[in-house]
């Protein structure tokens, strides 16, 4: 089998690798027993309208489900939406599950009802930023655009 189908034949230029930028991929997940999905849905649509590809996985996710989805979907950003108050017990397990699977270079952000005094602890765990109730959708889009990890092997 020839492996030179990307080689230097004159016509190969016609099928040269794409130099087009790719959409940022974002996982939006709702960990734990939390039925508040309005914010996550609003955000998913806003990110779609900003040109991102959003994998929305719905309610009641275990840390393992979230980490497996992030792994298989090879997302750039993991967004966690939580309004149940259980963030301090769930987030360490989610970060651990991501690490276990080698998903160590994604941007993790969170939103929902997270009290200000808990934010430093979440950041210590590796959550880059927290967006509470009333956050403007545009500020979230801008944040992701600025902070999504840049992969040196794929055009953004």
């Amino acid at each position, binding site marked *: 089998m020839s492996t030179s189908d990307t080689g230097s034949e004159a016509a190969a230029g016609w099928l040269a690798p794409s130099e087009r930028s790719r959409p940022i991929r974002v996982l939006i997940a709702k960990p734990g027993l939390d039925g508040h999905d309005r914010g996550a849905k609003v955000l998913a649509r806003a990110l*779609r309208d900003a040109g991102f*590809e959003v994998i929305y*996985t*719905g309610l009641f996710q275990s840390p393992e489900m979230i980490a497996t989805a992030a792994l298989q979907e090879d997302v750039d950003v993991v967004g966690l939406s939580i309004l149940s108050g259980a963030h301090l017990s769930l987030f360490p397990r989610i970060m651990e599950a991501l690490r276990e699977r080698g998903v160590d270079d994604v941007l993790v952000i969170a939103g929902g009802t997270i009290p200000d005094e808990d934010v430093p602890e979440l950041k210590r765990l590796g959550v880059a930023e927290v967006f509470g109730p009333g956050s403007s959708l545009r500020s979230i889009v801008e944040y992701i655009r600025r902070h999504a990890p840049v992969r040196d*092997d794929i055009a953004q």
Partner: protein
Amino acid sequence: MRLIDEALAGNQRALARLATHIENDTEIGQQAVAALYARTGRAHIVGITGPPGAGKSTLVNALIGQARADGRRVGVLAIDPTSPLSGGAVLGDRIRMLERHGDEGVFIRSLASRGRRGGLAPAISGLIHLLDAVGFDLIIIETVGVGQEEVDAAAVVHTLVLVQMPRSGDAVQVLKAGVLELADIFVVNKADLGGAEELARELRGMVAMAPSESRWRSPVIVCSAVSGQGIDDVLAAIDDHRRYLTDSGELARRQQSIAAAEVKTLVASAVDRLLRDSSASVAPPVEDVAQRRQTPRAAALEIIRSLALNR
């Protein structure tokens, strides 16, 4: 390439990374498909299509469970539409497949259609090759929910399953779009809601009357993806169809038409890209056409000749 070796060894992180490269048609992606292509051709590739909300994703989830029970490795490529306005997408098929998270024998990837019509995604063939090469036995493609537009999935799969649900009004519409001739298996889902037997009878009537060149008679199967009723019958029909393809020699013919479709798609996209990138060289004959000095067909021939010479 390290990523390829790791993916072949079962590393899902490497597999997912390669999928990203192939999806975005990068140099690494092209090299990966070139290196892996000789290993492909073993998997059974099954398309699941049908109107929005018919239960395609839920059925895929149930089929994964059924196929895992006898030890098969299952790869899923689930496609949802890209918004033509923003270029973004919300990919929601995975919601119905979350049960499978702890299982190394299952790999699920969501794809946006990125402008490709017919319910597929531009990189679908390359991604099928990837999953095939790393050893998935069953590869399931969930198309975008189809209404009236054409269904292209038949061009990339061995077995096409059309999923319908009772009392939706869509059932007959989809058949009008020409899927009746293309589907190898008909599934009436949501049997728990009632009305399924009526729809199944109607479908059986239509299938019996449809002209067909092959000896395969497309079965109509009633199931409930939620309760699990009839899922074993759906997988059995999929396996029957595979056996039929092999025994009748039709598999070889399908493999040829799948290859032909992929090659043609590559040629078409190359020409597309060339026309986009070389608007300057396209300009003179177009001007002549606008001024009625040349016919459109003659101008097109001139461009095709010059493209062939230029590279």
